[in-house]
């Protein structure tokens, strides 16, 4: 199996640019990446992994397939190399050129040609090599003039110390990335799985190597970061002195938000082609600056054949008296398990035989999981709700009659497609592409379950009850789901479409 830093033999067909995901972190995106690589044995892949800090004992979560021929990584919050911690001596002409191009980029932010100006600056930095170090940005007079002028424009009244160091922390990871572009595996296509740093890296890599840049997003990076910044307690803000347009966000939070939006715009602008999992995400991408012409919606997919055995076993063991609701996912706040428990109480009140199985890791947010267990006790649900921990998917799908999803945020959840493939109807909150999945967009198969508002136990219970009580309804919904998955969420289609994108010119 390939190791990070190993010399790459030849040019890869596709370099996947991965930020905090495959092959070190498991999750939806990683599963998807692994599927794609495995499903295209005739293409050569390379991996460019972008992590926060290097951990020598980090384990690979996946067996990397043999068609991966290159693997490089960069850690953005590691200490800069020594050469970048000491300012270089630079001729005044060279300095003027570098800062002119940086200045042109900064002035052009949020304007036409923003991306081109950035790429020009990166080329300028690369051209200078070690003769221009990151430390120059914190010691050159020209840089200071820029920093203070930005401060005076946008941050006046804020702590200058916080501003100075915020800018350093903002720029340093981007700098690490600029430096790492030289190490990026050679490839005909750079395929980034999000905007952000990975999108920036893919943009720079494609520009410097004259390759194509394909951008795919499962979630919407900018939106996720904005939420993260809003909740970040560590971004120090002074008490408000005067109300402003951005009353909800302090200047420093705004600085971070603008930074991630900028990364998003550069990514969208640079990408030759963009894919999105479902229609609503495409709208968000357009909102954050993507050209709708470039966007193609390609959903996630599964292989229906993988589920034939489950379907068969389910058919064979039909028990009209069984009323089991399943939840399959991590027990964390974003999945809103507490609302599920409150809904369970209401369901059990009306339908005595109902059971709830909550399957999934409880160790990711232990406080939250503990609170859920306590809530179940308080609601007197001991006999009706079981926390069963991580479970094997196929077995679990055999044990349940309805799948429920109460998340406050989702993309295109595999758990719904997989439930459908097994003939299990789904009740889900109206997040991400769940409505599209459950109701179908006029594909004629009919509803495969019900959609409810977020955080509404009454509505969830009201959606679950008919499915539990009416076995005919359950059956028709299950069939609709199977038909929909077979028609629109077949992995073969997904793989074929991505292959076309990889091999397009």
């Amino acid at each position: 199996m390939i190791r990070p830093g190993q010399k790459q033999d030849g040019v890869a067909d596709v370099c996947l640019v991965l930020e905090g995901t495959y092959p070190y972190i498991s999750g939806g995106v990683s599963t998807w990446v692994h599927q794609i690589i495995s499903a295209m044995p005739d293409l050569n892949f390379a991996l460019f992994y972008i992590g926060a800090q290097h951990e020598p004992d980090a384990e690979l979560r996946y067996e990397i397939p043999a068609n991966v021929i290159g693997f490089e990584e960069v850690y953005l919050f590691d200490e800069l190399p020594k050469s970048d911690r000491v300012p270089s001596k630079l001729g005044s002409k060279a300095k003027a050129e570098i800062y002119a191009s940086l200045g042109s980029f900064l002035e052009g932010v949020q304007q036409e040609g923003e991306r081109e100006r950035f790429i020009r600056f990166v080329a300028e930095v690369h051209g200078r090599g070690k003769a221009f170090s990151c430390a120059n940005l914190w010691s050159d007079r020209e840089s200071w003039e820029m920093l203070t002028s930005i401060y005076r424009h946008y941050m006046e009244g804020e702590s200058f110390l916080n501003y100075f160091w915020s800018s350093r922390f903002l720029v340093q990871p981007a700098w690490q990335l600029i430096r790492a572009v030289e190490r990026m595996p050679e490839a005909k296509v750079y395929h980034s799985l999000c905007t952000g740093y990975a999108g920036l890296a893919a943009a720079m890599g494609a520009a410097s190597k004259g390759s194509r840049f394909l951008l795919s997003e499962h979630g919407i990076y900018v939106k996720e970061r904005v939420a993260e910044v809003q909740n970040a307690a560590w971004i120090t803000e002074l008490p408000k002195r005067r109300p402003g347009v951005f009353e909800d966000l302090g200047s420093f939070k705004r600085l971070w938000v603008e930074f991630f939006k900028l990364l998003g715009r550069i990514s969208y602008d640079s990408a030759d082609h963009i894919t999105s999992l479902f229609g609503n995400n495409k709208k968000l991408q357009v909102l954050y600056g993507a050209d709708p012409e470039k966007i193609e919606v390609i959903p996630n997919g599964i292989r229906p054949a993988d589920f034939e055995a489950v379907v068969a076993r389910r058919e064979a063991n039909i028990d009209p008296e069984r009323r089991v609701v399943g939840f399959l996912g991590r027990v964390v706040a974003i999945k809103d398990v507490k609302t599920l428990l409150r809904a369970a109480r209401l369901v059990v009140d009306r339908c005595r035989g109902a059971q709830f199985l909550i399957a999934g890791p409880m160790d990711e947010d232990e406080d939250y999981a503990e609170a859920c267990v306590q809530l179940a006790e308080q609601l007197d649900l001991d006999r009706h709700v079981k926390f069963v921990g991580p479970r094997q998917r196929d077995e679990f799908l055999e044990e349940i009659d309805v799948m429920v999803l109460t998340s406050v945020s989702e993309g295109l959840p595999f758990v719904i497609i997989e439930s459908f493939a097994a003939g299990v109807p789904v009740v889900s909150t109206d997040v991400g592409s769940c409505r599209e999945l459950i109701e179908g967009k006029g594909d004629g198969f009919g509803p495969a379950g019900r959609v409810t508002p977020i955080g509404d136990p009454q509505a969830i219970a009201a959606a679950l009850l008919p499915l539990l009580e009416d076995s005919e309804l359950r059956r028709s919904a299950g069939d609709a789901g199977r038909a929909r998955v077979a028609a629109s969420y077949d992995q073969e289609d997904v793989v074929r479409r991505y292959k076309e994108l990889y091999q397009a010119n």
Partner: protein
Amino acid sequence: MAGIGFELRKILSKDSYSSLLRAYGYSAIIGSGPWIISIVSIVIVSYLLSGAFGSGEVQLFTASITHVYAFSLILVGPLQLVLTRFAADKLSAREPEAIFPSFLAALTVAGFVGGIGGIVFFGFGTEASLLYQLSAAGLMIYVCCIFIASNYLTALLDYREVVWAFFVGYVLSGLAAYGLGITWGVPAAMFGFAAGHAVLFLLLFRALRRGLGGEAQTSWEVLKYFKKFPSLMLCGLMYNLGIWVDKLLFWWFSDQHEQVNGLIFSARHYDVGIYLSLLSIVPGMAVFFLKIETDFAERFQAFFDLVEKGGTLQQLVDTRDEIADSLGRGFLNLFAVQGVVTAFLVVFADRIPAIISISAIQLGIFRVTLFGAFLLVIFLSLLTILFYFDDRRGALLCTSVFVVANIIGSWATLQANEAWYGFGFVIAAGLAMVIAGWRVNSRLGSLEYHVFTSSQG
């Protein structure tokens, strides 16, 4: 969800950025204190003893002491600024207990260097009695150690104890030299003088032991600082060399130079003239240390406090301007006070021969070098400000110019006649002052820039 977002927060576990700001700024009295005291004591002791001995013997005695002071300052100079820096950093890192062990290490080095230097110079370089040679070498050890100790005196809260130590030490040195000298001659006087200095050193040591705290165990951690700040070493050397190099040149190469004993030389005309004028800087130094430095240090600290408390750029710029204004006023004050003193002395120099015996040539040199002393006191003050700004490059530049200009200038005047003596020193002090002033001015003009850009995380 893909993306590392800003996991940075884990790395930046501190809740403020202020811990990333390196608070520098330290006083560096560059041994000008001990240097002035030594000049005063030489003048007084030689005046006292001139009645007791023949002039040749007095000359050997005072010239020996002058050599001891000069060599000690030059030898110990490279250590002083580095030690001060180490102590300042340890204080700001809240590890004051690390200072005393470093003091012991410095004493070991200084005592060793002083001892070797003293034994070589007086043992092989003079033809005098063994008692004299040993006493002079001993004096050199004590003086080196006193100069090291005086670095740390600013850290002591109780100034009275320090003043008392110097008072007792010098009175004892003078009395012992005088008392032993008139009974048993010059070697005994040297022995008494050295013994007085030993008492002074012990008193200072005791005060520092009590005032600094920490374990009485030598720690060589400070050695790392010599590697880290070679410019400070060089700066200390240059400064002390600059102060003495014109005298050395006159001792060795002037037409009127006299071989006092072996390698000990003197140049009567130049020595008397310049020592007298150097005494004139006492009022200026007092104005600087009592008025400018205290006020400046307070405002400078306030600047850093403002940075940490989240001051805006405009507030920082305003505070910087206030510092500049107050420094400007302070230096005007210094100009005025020292100017009056210098003018007074130049005008009334004619009356001096009526008080102490002084030749016309000496008087001429005195008048010329008075201007040099005026410039020197301003140079020294500016240099101290440069150390607060951590402008090591600037400090090295102006001290180096001081040395080089003093060598070239003094050498050139030696080729001419007595009318030109002292001008080399004046020009050197003037040049150094101009450069130091330029550096202070440019640093001050963009203080916030330097404060932020020099703290490379």
